[in-house]
């Protein structure tokens, strides 16, 4: 189809369409006319493609008809699943095309036309067939493979690999319709014999896993090596060991104690007991039911009481492991910082040597600035996690440090 012919036909089509309306409509909706003009060549192309595909389908159908009439395709032993699927799809397609025809003619499809009923019926059938198909998939694949192997002469392939008949029988290749599992296939007889398998593979023998399901990609902000992530900062600000450190080093800040046990005070610092109680309260209020103390909760409370829990004494040695694990990240950050400042070893000796050097040579050049100048700064920086900012002391600090507008002294 030459493009000029398409344009001619488009014009003819346009005239036909626009000529159907009354004479005044051309001036009434020029936009509509423009739209139609733009779309009509496309429509003509589509119609032609439909006609061509129908022709090819018709040819295939004639062929199939001949084969059936010459009894080369057996259809006598009842209806199999695959046949149902074929007939179902065919019926679906015919009904669908009829439905499209109805729509094109502008007939309303709100009342249930028998073709629509048929469509629904076929859809239901196809959906019901699907799980059965899944179950049969293995067998169908095996049969197809057998057919393919039969069509391609496989004797040549085996001769290349110098595989004996005995091996063939054992591997089950000669009888591909066998559905039982074949342990010899696990070893991969072909790769053992074919020594160039690794190099012939595209990625040079490296295993690349198949990409089946999409996995979410979370773009993390670029972290430098010695940085502490927000989660580590959070967990550190909660750990007891770190709190002790903060009390020792950050002397400008008052020591903070939980108000657990008293009925007063905003519960800013929460320990595990507070968290537990808060959880229970939340559940009770949202679900409108009171929880009674369970047996294991009572047991735990009794055990804690027996160990001196009434006075709030906690055995330090019990939680030492978890505390040190939490501090591990901090330790890494500090050591990386030291390495940056004092050379690759980052040890105390290197630091002393550097200091001594600068003292003797009289160089007062500014040392490489690390992230933490001293322990206090380290502690305050790390404690700037969410748990460290909520306390009243921090809030007051922030308020005091915020610059205030001065209305006095205006001139």
């Amino acid at each position: 189809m030459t493009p000029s012919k398409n344009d001619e036909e488009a014009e003819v089509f346009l005239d036909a369409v626009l000529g159907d309306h009354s004479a005044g409509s051309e001036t009434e909706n020029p936009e509509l006319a423009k739209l139609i003009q733009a779309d009509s060549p496309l429509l003509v192309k589509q119609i032609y493609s439909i006609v061509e595909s129908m022709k090819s389908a018709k040819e295939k159908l004639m062929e199939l008809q001949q084969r059936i009439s010459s009894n080369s395709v057996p259809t006598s032993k009842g209806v199999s699943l695959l046949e149902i699927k074929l007939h179902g799809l065919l019926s679906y397609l015919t009904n669908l095309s009829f439905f499209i025809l109805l729509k094109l003619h502008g007939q309303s499809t709100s009342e249930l036309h028998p073709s629509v009923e048929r469509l629904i019926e076929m859809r239901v059938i196809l959906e019901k067939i699907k799980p059965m198909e899944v179950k049969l998939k293995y067998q169908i694949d095996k049969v197809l493979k057998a057919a393919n192997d039969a069509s391609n002469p496989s004797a040549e392939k085996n001769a290349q690999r110098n595989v004996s008949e005995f091996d063939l029988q054992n591997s089950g290749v000669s009888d591909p319709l066998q559905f039982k599992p074949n342990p010899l296939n696990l070893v991969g007889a072909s790769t053992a014999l074919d020594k160039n398998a690794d190099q012939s593979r595209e990625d040079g023998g490296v295993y690349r896993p198949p990409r089946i399901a999409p996995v979410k990609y979370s773009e993390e902000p670029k972290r430098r090596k010695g940085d502490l992530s927000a989660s580590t900062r959070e967990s550190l600000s909660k750990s007891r060991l770190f709190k002790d450190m903060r009390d020792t080093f950050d002397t400008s800040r008052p020591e903070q104690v939980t108000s657990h046990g008293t009925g007063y005070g905003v519960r800013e610092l929460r320990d595990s007991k507070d968290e537990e109680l808060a959880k229970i309260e939340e559940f009770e209020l949202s679900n409108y039911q009171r929880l009674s103390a369970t047996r294991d909760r009572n047991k735990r409370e009794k055990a804690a009481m027996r160990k001196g829990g009434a006075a709030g004494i906690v055995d330090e040695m019990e939680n030492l492991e978890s505390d040190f694990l939490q501090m591990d990240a901090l330790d890494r950050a500090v050591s990386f910082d030291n390495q940056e400042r004092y050379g690759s070893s980052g040890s105390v000796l290197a630091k002393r040597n550097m200091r001594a050097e600068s003292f003797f040579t009289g160089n007062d050049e500014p040392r490489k600035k690390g992230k933490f100048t001293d322990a206090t700064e380290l502690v305050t920086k790390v404690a700037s996690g969410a748990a460290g900012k909520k306390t009243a002391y921090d809030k007051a600090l922030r308020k005091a440090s915020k610059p205030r507008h001065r209305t006095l002294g205006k001139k």
Partner: protein
Amino acid sequence: MIVDVLHPGRPNVSHKELGDRLAKLYKSSEECIFTFGFRTAFGGGKSTGFALIYDSLDEAKKVEPKYRLIRHGIGAKGIISSKQRKERKNRAKKFRGTKKAKAATAGKK
């Protein structure tokens, strides 16, 4: 809804009084108000609990659990004394199926 009651200087408030107050507040009748789950905070003076207000007593009877209806005075209690319950059970052991119910009530007489 959640109800916070402030009662300084006195022990916690009874269900009846709570029902009266809530009826006044929400302009309904006391028979449709069910209160439960009241816990007094440590130190006294404040208790927190739950209250449910229904449109009519029939709806309440359909929805509420039996123990709350009994507290209100509507529900039927059944036999409480354990001795009588055990006697009833032993009388019913001799039969199977619907005859059990008949036996339990018949033997009592």
